[in-house]
């Protein structure tokens, strides 16, 4: 390795951990240094391989139940309850949890927990879309092609825009399934990173963006004009915010 930046700085750049000046300097350097360009490609390739391999191992549902049961009821009781009482409490906790779990699966994004479930589904859908041949059903950078394509396939008409001039060219669209309902998915690309924007109708009031990350993917969710939007990508969180403001300002 001849270029010392290919050893470490490229990682900071790839992970969006350089400050603005550092990132700009590195981008200038990148134009002349093929070693760093290769290193960056390697990082992207490794990152997407890890994403596709789905190495993330979620906790089994039984573990949550076990933990909730062992936390026990809040506020200590004076006497030690008998074994039977504990057993009943554990059963009650399990029933409550099961009821709660089924309730939150049927309702879309209200509280933090629901957001986590939604985020997990959205990230799964994003990963599925990255499998070969799954990204787009209609390939077009022209919104006048993509928008009519959705007609008749969905019970709503998603807003479709191209932001090629602003660094987010539209790649196409497809129908996906989130929370058991058909949703529109628009695909944008940002410096080689794909961004999926999932859109479905909602009765809820408009809401500003909330964001998070899961399994190394960033997501950003907001509601506007009777539609719920959720953007997900392995691009930087700031890129999603930029795309969000483009979508909402048009």
């Amino acid at each position, binding site marked *: 390795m001849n270029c010392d930046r290919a*050893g*470490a*700085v*490229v*990682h*900071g750049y790839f*992970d969006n*951990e350089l400050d603005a000046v550092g990132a700009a300097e590195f981008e200038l350097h990148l134009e002349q240094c093929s070693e760093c360009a*290769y290193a960056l*490609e*390697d*990082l*992207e*390739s*490794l*990152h*997407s*391989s*890890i994403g*596709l*391999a*789905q*190495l*993330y*191992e*979620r*906790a*089994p549902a039984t*573990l*949550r139940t*076990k*933990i*909730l049961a*062992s*936390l*026990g009821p*809040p*506020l*200590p009781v004076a006497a030690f309850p008998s074994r039977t009482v504990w057993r009943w409490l554990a059963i009650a906790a399990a029933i409550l949890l099961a009821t709660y779990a089924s309730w939150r699966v049927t309702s879309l994004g209200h509280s*933090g*927990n629901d957001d*986590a479930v939604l985020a*997990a589904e959205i990230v799964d859908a994003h990963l599925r879309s990255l499998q070969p041949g799954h990204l787009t059903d209609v390939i077009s950078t022209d919104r006048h092609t993509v928008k009519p394509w959705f007609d008749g396939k969905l019970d709503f008409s998603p807003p479709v825009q191209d932001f090629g001039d602003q660094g987010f060219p539209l790649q196409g669209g497809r129908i996906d399934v989130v929370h058991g309902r058909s949703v529109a998915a628009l695909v944008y690309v940002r410096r080689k990173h794909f961004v999926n924007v999932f859109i479905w109708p909602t009765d809820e009031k408009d809401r500003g963006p909330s964001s998070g*990350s*899961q*399994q*190394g*993917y*960033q997501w950003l969710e907001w509601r506007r004009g009777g539609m719920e939007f959720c953007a997900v990508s392995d691009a930087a969180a700031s890129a999603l915010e930029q795309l969000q403001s483009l979508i909402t300002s048009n």
Partner: protein
Amino acid sequence: MLDSQEQARFETLVLPHLDSAHNLARWLLHGGADAEDAAQEAMLRAYRFFAGFRGGDARAWLLQIVRNTCLTWMQKNRHGKDTDEFDEEVHGPPGPTPEALAIAADSRGRLTQALESLPSRFREVIVLRELEGCSYKEIAIITSIPIGTVMSTLSRARRQLHLALTGPADKESIHEL
């Protein structure tokens, strides 16, 4: 034991990160039932220490406890027969193409095996960054690595993972199969 208000706070702030806790434990402890037990133990510890949680990044706070729990676990159960340090200079063939890397990494099994073969200090930063999406600051908090060296640690960890994927198959792990 926490009062009902604090317990509700714990269930809102900390418990939702159970998946993260389980994932980190799984990769630190090489899998299975141990990971579940360690994640549970860490969660109960977090519950006991919750009064000392000053707010802020609940996931990083929990993962710090998970990591400590796993390290103790490894010492206690003599799980710590961690892979010998892998000499990258000796084992490393010169730069394979990204395509070759993608093909090599294609199977989940190979990637799992490669990740398992890394020493735990490298494995944990890969898991935290690539699977958990932690920032360098969070990685520094969780692993107690100084923030200034997170980038270079990650860089070495990724290089080793890259080599484990593209380099000659590890004889020991084949033997295990």
